[in-house]
């Protein structure tokens, strides 16, 4: 129900909220515009300005030609790395999290409360407490500086989050539904496949969106456990900034930042309300 009267109070509200919105958009606008400006222009007229020459070539440079450390292959290989880590880890952690959430919410087994409690505790455990052990584990299985190593880390750590989410969702399924299915003769897997899974799309979408966003944007593990060509795009961006510290290439860098941020921004724009659902649901922990 919208109030369409125009009292001074409401005018103030509109002004306030849209000014704030403009402020919030400034960083995005700046990066977008700068990504098509030349470096000289930016140095001359600061980051905030309209392109005089449209340097679309920045994108090609950022994608394929730019030099990070010793390699001049642009940001493409790092984007690929991020994809090769984010997509498998999201799928694995979501699938196993859904089954685990299903088991914990609808079935009783010895130690179920304990193990669920510990798993959720994992959401609060700082990453710093896990860095050293992961180093040892990855080294022992020979996965240091590999994408597979990152997939392993994110899959296992993602389980805390995905299990919590799915469990909180499945717990609303009426027990009688499961009781009826058991009387009908369905077992653990059939109940999951025929009854629970068809009810799951909303929570699975939310989980996938959040896992993908979180893993793609993750930096600490990327920079700790991979180097050089194996790094995900977040770590590559930092390396990029460090590499050009002397001769800033803000135009190309902006293009690189846009490319790097694009996947999660797209997911956000397309995912819309599922994104918000994940926010509010995550706060319930």
């Amino acid at each position, binding site marked *: *129900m919208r*109030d369409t009267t125009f009292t001074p109070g409401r005018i103030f*509200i509109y002004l306030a*909220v849209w000014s704030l*919105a403009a402020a*919030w958009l400034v*960083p995005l606008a*700046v*990066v977008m515009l700068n990504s098509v400006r030349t470096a000289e222009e930016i140095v001359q007229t*600061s*980051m*905030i300005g309209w392109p005089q020459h449209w340097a679309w070539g920045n994108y090609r440079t950022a994608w394929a030609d730019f030099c990070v450390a010793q390699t001049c292959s642009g940001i493409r290989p790092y984007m690929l790395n991020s994809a090769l880590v984010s997509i498998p880890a999201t799928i694995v952690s979501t699938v196993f*999290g859904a*089954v685990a959430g299903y*088991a*914990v919410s*609808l079935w*009783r087994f010895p130690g179920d409360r304990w*193990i*669920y409690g*510990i*798993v959720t505790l*994992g959401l*609060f*455990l*700082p*990453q*710093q*407490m*896990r860095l*050293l*052990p992961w180093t040892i584990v990855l080294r022992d299985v020979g996965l240091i500086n590999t994408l597979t190593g990152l997939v392993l880390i994110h899959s296992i*750590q993602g*389980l*805390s989050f995905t*299990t919590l989410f799915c469990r909180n969702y499945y717990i609303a399924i009426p*027990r009688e539904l*499961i*009781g009826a299915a*058991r009387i009908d003769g369905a*077992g*653990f*897997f059939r109940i999951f496949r025929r009854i629970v899974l068809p009810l799951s799309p909303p929570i699975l979408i939310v989980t996938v969106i959040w896992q993908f966003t979180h893993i*793609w*944007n993750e*930096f600490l593990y990327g920079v*700790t456990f991979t180097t050089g060509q194996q790094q995900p795009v977040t*770590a590559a*961006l*930092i390396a990029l*900034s460090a590499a050009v510290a002397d001769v800033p290439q803000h135009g190309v860098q902006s293009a690189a*930042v846009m490319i*790097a*941020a694009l996947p*999660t*921004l797209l997911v*956000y724009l397309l995912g819309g309300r599922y*994104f918000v659902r994940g*926010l*509010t649901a995550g706060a319930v922990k």
Partner: protein
Amino acid sequence: MSEAAAARRPKVFGLARRLPEHLTIWVPLLLAAGHIVSFSLWTLWVSFTPSTLLPEFGWVGLHNYTAVLATRNWRIAFDNLLLFGSAFVVLSLLTGLGLAILLDQRIRGENVLRSIFLYPMAVSFVVTGTVWSWLLNPGVGVQKFVNDFGWMSFRFDWLINRDMAIWTIVMAAVWQSAGFGMALFLAGLRSVDTDLIKAAQIDGAGPVRLYRRVILPTLWPITVTVVVIQLQFAITTFDLVRALTGGGPGIATLLPALVVYDFMFQRGLLGRGAAAAVLMLLTLLAVLLPYAAWRHVQARKTARA
């Protein structure tokens, strides 16, 4: 969950016949739970050893801890954390609440506005830090922009100012996270019982009083949740600082997470690094345990009521 409701969940029968079920249930859960417990304990153990480049056996008691606490880096980082933590949480909370109240006024374009305030959450902290480092750079950022307009004496060089640099991190963090509080508060505002509002309006409450006395008090639980989650983020902040200031200028914007990383992977002092990590955990527990206790007390109060 009540006992009766918990008991109504069917038991997973048998063992041998149900091996696939047990494997499917136990393997992921054990991996998830197991790694949390074993990793924490292992890091804790390392913090008591004289490990440097590699983990070593040995026992040095609290030596690593006292060493870490004595370093200038840690003390600066912890002071920064106190400042950053409180400023960030308060500002983020107020901004989020303010935005939520504004959006609650049934204005047009509400969905678009919500999307605008939330999009920073979809973006990596590395991206945020990088972009803000450009904006706040006096040479190419806002200061230069304003200077070019003619206001030559305008200064906005916090980024390279030892005393003010930490505030740049606060700004960027608030920009990124205010949307979170906003989303939660908005949901809370919308879920206030309309009968309550009608009763207050009949009682003659104007909009300000309505918010202050009737609506905002119901937001207490959400406020606590937001504060706890934001504090948790503040204590473990790493990406944003690395991207925005790199810990600088100098070591002016160090935060505990960077000190940990520095000890572990740049100086090769695993024992100290582990101790620093445990100290971070303790700081976090100092926030979480009272929160858990408070939740427990609240639950018992409502149960008795």
